[in-house]
């Protein structure tokens, strides 16, 4: 279930195991049979740490979703609430407990706060008069969750919004705490680099926490050589662009949540056994887990989508050749060997079939005119063509009432690539949006303006072309099949965030001081003293390991670009990626939208 986590450069399974241990310890604290009442948001991330079987081993017999009113009946001794520390959830819990108390059922209540307990919430429970009903009030420190052998996420949905819109730095505190946990398991990270206000804040907290923990340091040889903290708002452009890697497109089109994607079932119907062919087409979406445990997926997920077809057909040939081998198997020994490989081959074949279906589904979309037109406009913006005028394509899209998020993505992109829109253009777009989609979206537009995504030009100078040229953000001759540069992930556009990581590794940020100054927030470098005797002696040719932490979210295409850099032969650096949330343009813009629920008049 989690073996793939340990195959990477850094064994992230250690982190998972630590998390599982904590969970078991808590469950054992509540002796007897248990029912868990879940804050719905937590079930996804928890699934990556522990399956139901683990819970079952510790006498968890029932699971419910947290909702108001009375608790469902369950013949158990303990009721455990697994919740985020949110006030509105406390009110629901109080309601549950009070109604259960009225029934006089002799049950023990417990609360497990994820990722941290909160005095504010406990105060609220106290006000509601139920605090005393809880036998255990505990916290389950789950900050960074391993998603893959090189990927950690906090899956904190509102992180970007809270940090950049609401100046609520709670998630940054959790980030710093999570990084401390990571250092406790993998050793102190000797170097910290960063760019942006939030990055600075996190680094400050980490250094402060290190002082606080002084004396209880673990003596572990550092696994990471450096940490790079990047604010999302230094690179607002990248998430807005349509990702063009296989995994990126799956996410753009169907959305990947907690490592799972739900796909329309029609394409997969044919794979059912022949005997069942007569039955109706499945109506439930097909749910698939996507991670490096699947060999084929690990191979193709980071490829540009235009290179996926070739990879799949190559794979198909290899597999059918492998099956052909059976004709060559003559001796009993040979046959036995062939048979022993069968399960692996069959798995490979079904995996191939699945991905061929997914690729077909996606191809239908990428070859559509609408997709092409949209991409053309994106690329025009990224290369700086006519970013200061009202764009006719966007106008048409609004007139045809295309989905609002699509419009907001495009307009924001134009604004970012033009370092803000001319007041006239800005007002025109806003007016069009309000008239077409409703005036209530003024609040959303406000939010976008506040976060710098969609804003009027304040200075006459547009920095974007300088940044683009210096960092080589646009590569004319991006090779999609056999890439030689990270720009392949967006078929020409090299993500700014990843360029920063790349330049940092070689030749260093000093070479791009000018550009760094144009991007918001400070850039910095800190060193953390290692305990004596823990200085790593690097072997000749051994790669450095860098943890890149994206504060406010990262896209799959950016991850692909970092993986590409890790695999470069003369790269010299391998990357582990961490973030507050895995995002794409759509989910990101969505998180910034304000939709007052209008009462019907």
């Amino acid at each position: 279930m989690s073996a793939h986590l340990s195959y990477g450069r850094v064994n992230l399974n250690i982190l998972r195991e630590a998390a599982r241990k904590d969970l078991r310890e808590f469950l054992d604290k509540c002796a007897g049979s248990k029912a868990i009442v879940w804050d719905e948001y937590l079930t996804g991330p928890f699934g990556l740490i522990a399956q139901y079987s683990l819970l079952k081993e510790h006498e968890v017999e029932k699971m419910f979703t947290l909702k108001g009113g009375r608790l469902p009946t369950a013949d158990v001794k303990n009721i455990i609430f697994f919740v985020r520390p949110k006030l509105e959830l406390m009110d629901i819990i109080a309601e549950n407990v009070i109604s259960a108390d009225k029934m006089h059922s002799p049950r023990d209540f417990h609360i497990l706060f994820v990722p941290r307990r909160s005095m504010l919430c406990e105060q609220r429970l106290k006000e509601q008069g139920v605090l005393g009903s809880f036998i255990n009030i505990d916290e389950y420190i789950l900050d960074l969750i391993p998603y893959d052998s090189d990927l950690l996420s906090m899956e904190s949905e509102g992180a970007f919004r809270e940090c950049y819109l609401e100046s609520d730095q709670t998630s940054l505190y959790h980030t710093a705490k999570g990084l401390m946990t990571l250092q406790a398991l993998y050793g102190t990270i000797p170097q910290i680099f960063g760019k942006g206000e939030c990055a600075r804040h996190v680094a400050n907290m980490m250094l402060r926490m290190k002082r606080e923990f002084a004396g209880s340091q673990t003596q572990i040889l550092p696994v990471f050589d450096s940490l790079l903290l990047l604010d999302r708002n230094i690179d607002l452009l990248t998430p807005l662009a349509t990702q063009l890697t296989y995994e990126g497109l799956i996410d753009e089109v169907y959305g990947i949540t907690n490592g799972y994607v739900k796909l329309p079932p029609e394409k997969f119907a044919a794979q059912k056994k022949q005997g069942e062919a007569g039955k109706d087409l499945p109506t439930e979406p097909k749910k698939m887990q996507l991670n490096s445990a699947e060999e084929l997926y690990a191979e193709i997920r980071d490829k540009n989508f235009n290179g996926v077809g070739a990879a799949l057909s190559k794979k198909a040939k290899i597999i059918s050749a492998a099956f052909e081998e059976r004709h060559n198997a003559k001796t009993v020994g040979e046959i036995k060997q062939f048979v022993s490989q069968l399960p692996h081959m069959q798995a490979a074949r079904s995996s191939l079939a699945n991905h061929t279906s997914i690729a077909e589904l996606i191809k239908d979309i990428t070859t559509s005119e609408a997709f092409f037109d949209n991409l053309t406009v994106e690329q025009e913006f990224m290369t700086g063509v006519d970013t200061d005028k009202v764009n006719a394509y966007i106008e048409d899209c609004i007139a045809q009432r295309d989905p609002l998020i699509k419009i907001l993505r495009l307009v924001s992109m134009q604004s970012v690539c033009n370092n803000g829109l001319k007041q006239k253009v800005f007002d025109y777009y806003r007016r069009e949006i309000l008239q077409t989609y409703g005036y209530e979206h003024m609040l959303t537009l406000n939010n976008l303006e506040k976060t710098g995504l969609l804003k009027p030009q304040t200075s006459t100078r547009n920095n974007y072309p300088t940044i683009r040229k210096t960092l080589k953000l646009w590569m004319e001759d991006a090779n999609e099949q056999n890439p030689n540069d990270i720009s392949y992930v967006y078929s020409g556009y090299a993500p700014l965030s990843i360029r920063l990581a790349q330049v940092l590794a070689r030749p260093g940020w000093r070479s791009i001081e000018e550009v760094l100054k144009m991007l918001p927030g400070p850039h910095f470098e800190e060193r953390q003293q290692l305990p004596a005797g823990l200085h790593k002696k690097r072997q000749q040719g051994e790669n450095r390991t860098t943890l890149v932490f994206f504060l406010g979210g990262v896209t799959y295409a950016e991850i692909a670009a970092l993986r590409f850099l890790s695999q470069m032969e003369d790269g010299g650096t391998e990357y582990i990626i961490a973030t507050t949330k895995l995002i794409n343009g759509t989910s990101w813009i969505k998180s910034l939208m304000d939709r007052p629920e209008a009462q019907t008049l």
Partner: protein
Amino acid sequence: MAFITANWNPLGDAFYRKIELYDMGWSLRDGLKDCMVAAAPYGGPIALLRQSQRPSPSARPQLEIYSSSGVSMASFPWKSGPVRQLGWTVCDDLLAIQEDGTVLIYDLFGTFKRHFSMGNEVVQNQVLEAKVFHSPYGTGVAIVTGASRFTLAMNIDDLKLRRLPEVPGLQGAPSCWAVLTQDRQTKVLLANGADLYILDNTSCTPVTPPGLSPQACSIINMAVSFSYKYLALFTDSGHLWMGSTNLKDKLSEVETKVRSAPKQMVWSRRPKSQQPSVVLMWDRLLLVAGVCKETIQYTLDEECVCVAELDGVRIVGASRHEMLQEVPSACEDIFKIASMAPGALLLEAHKEYEKCSQKADEYLREIKEQSVLGEAVKQCVEAAGYEHEPETQKTLLRAASFGKCFLSNFPPEPFVSMCRDLRVLNSVRDYSVGIPLTHTQYKQMTVQVLIDRLVYRKLYPLAIEICRYLKTPEYQGVSRVLKHWACCKVQQKEEPDESIARAVSVKLGEAAGISYSEIAARAYECGRTELAIKLLEFEPRSGEQVPLLLKMKRSQLGLSKAIESGDTDLVYTVVTYLKNEMNRGDFFMTLRNQPVALSLYRQFCKHQEQETLKDLFNQDDDHHELGNFYVRASYKESKLEARLSLLQSAVDEYNKAKNEFAAKATEEEMKLLRFQRRLDEEKGEALLGLSLHDTLHALLSANYHKQAEQLYRDFRVPDKRYWWLKLTALAEKEDWDELEKFAKSKKSPIGYLPFVEVCVKRHNKYEAKKYVSKVTPEQKVKAHLAIGDLEGAAEAAIERRSEGEISTVLARCSPTTDRALLERLNRARSTAAKK
């Protein structure tokens, strides 16, 4: 080495020995006569309450506290009421139980800490007798009152008084009694004449010890062992009965031939004891009565007190302090005369080796032949632990070390840790420290507790030395000691704040994991708020500073510290505190100076207290946010008038904020709402709440073209969008005539390709064709393709000589049916390519 066994006395098949621990450093004029004495186990301190020499009522008794070696630690006249009993708690605090039931608690240096009462009824009836006892729950106190009622306090740190049921027929105090802890329950065992009772929470049960000699008329003393497992009863017939405390088994009964009541009676056992015994003390006689029915008698030349220990009995006298215990088997094996035990041989071998005699080899061979060298080393190491004299320890350890040389795979750990333990023990047994711990006691007590005890005695340097020597992790070792030192330092009233703060920071600066907030809390308890604040400055964990700062009413500082920590929950906590503490104006002002707290509080209000949010924006004159606030609020209204009035407020705020765009947009919104209502009333359409775009669409669909036109003009909808809108609406209801009219009304700002596409989308190729001719040349190919007219598309593409467009058409041609077309196109492409 013969002298080692000089103080051994046989008892059954074991030996007992009496070791001198100290020559007492105190000088007591009258010895321990007329003294109330309490000595704590584990080599703890000794308290004496001495009656004054002059028997005048005004004369006060003197309370004195000494270490086990008789070094004075405190002495002061007793000014409180008459004391019934003294006792020590597990943390080396002195308990003085007064006649009126008040229990006073003093620390080791005689500083009063606190007091509590054993209940109101005691005040009247008075305490007749009292006992201090230790259990897994802590230190407890038991009393019996003048009304012959028992009251128990299980744990003095978590005081819950339990009044036990009445004992039938008991008048005054019982003849003897003891407290037992059994099955996690605390009970009282008492004797009234010849009757024995067990008293627990609910009942009083008469019990009979099995096999108690019938001659006795009264049980006059009793003793419970250190572990509460064994009981000894002494009767007025001079019989000593020994058995288990559950009164099921009898171990033995000894006739002592002394009929008077012993002054003290205690068990002497050790873990793995072969011959447990009870030590009885009379005025001049100390009697050790073993289970084997044999006895040892010692004459006492002075008044003494016995202290029960885990592995023996200490005997404290005015001049000497001795330890009486069963000789551990390891020591017995090695030192017993003519012993041939492996350890004894090894010791002998080593002795010869030191003398450079070849006999060493002989002895060693003998041990090796029996292959017991490993055991020999183990024995020597173990025995070293039981010996009090460093010289003897050294001899044994040297022998062990010598033996180890001839073993290949012997684990070094026991030897090394024994050396370490003994070094620590010898240093705390030193006269100046005066903690005569045995190795067994030390292991039971743990290093942590030993360090604590040293700290209570303010022996900070020694404690630190021990921590460093044992390599205890800093935060539980050195840092902890330093913290206690600092806590003690801040209580020195005569020193000014400044110099204490400096001294503390200098000394603690380097140590890791120091909790300055605990030190500060202590300073605050002593009323030194300023010092506490100074000390808190050194605390690296802001989280720890905050609660104390709040307690000290330094909430502003607390807020800054909470913000510094980055822990938003902590900030919220302080903010909530401030909110209740301050008046609203001050509260808002405070937040205004702390943007981080302010934005967090805004978040809180957004979800919890909308009205406060408004006040906050008002105070900051943040008209833009106020505008947003009203807009948000307006959507919650289900009545149009209310919504309009909120929107008007929003417009006013936006105007104040000079946000022209937002003001205008909101005005537009109001205009739209009013228009929609009018139309809804007039025509019965359900338009209210739709966006402008959707309203137009609905109007066009319902054939209200005039109204749509009006809206289009009033709201200055761009032509392009209006054309799209109308086009889509008409096509959707398939009003082809109207569409055609519309197309001809004037020149389309969006061209005519959309017309074609819209018709095709509605599967009406016939209508679509009408517009193909009007499409601009650039879009012709697309238009022809849209209606599936390959020929036309080919025509247009060839005419435009565009390679790309020709290819597009080519891709749509089928090689079988459109062969002629294919050829033409291919030709055209090659000519186009040539150019």
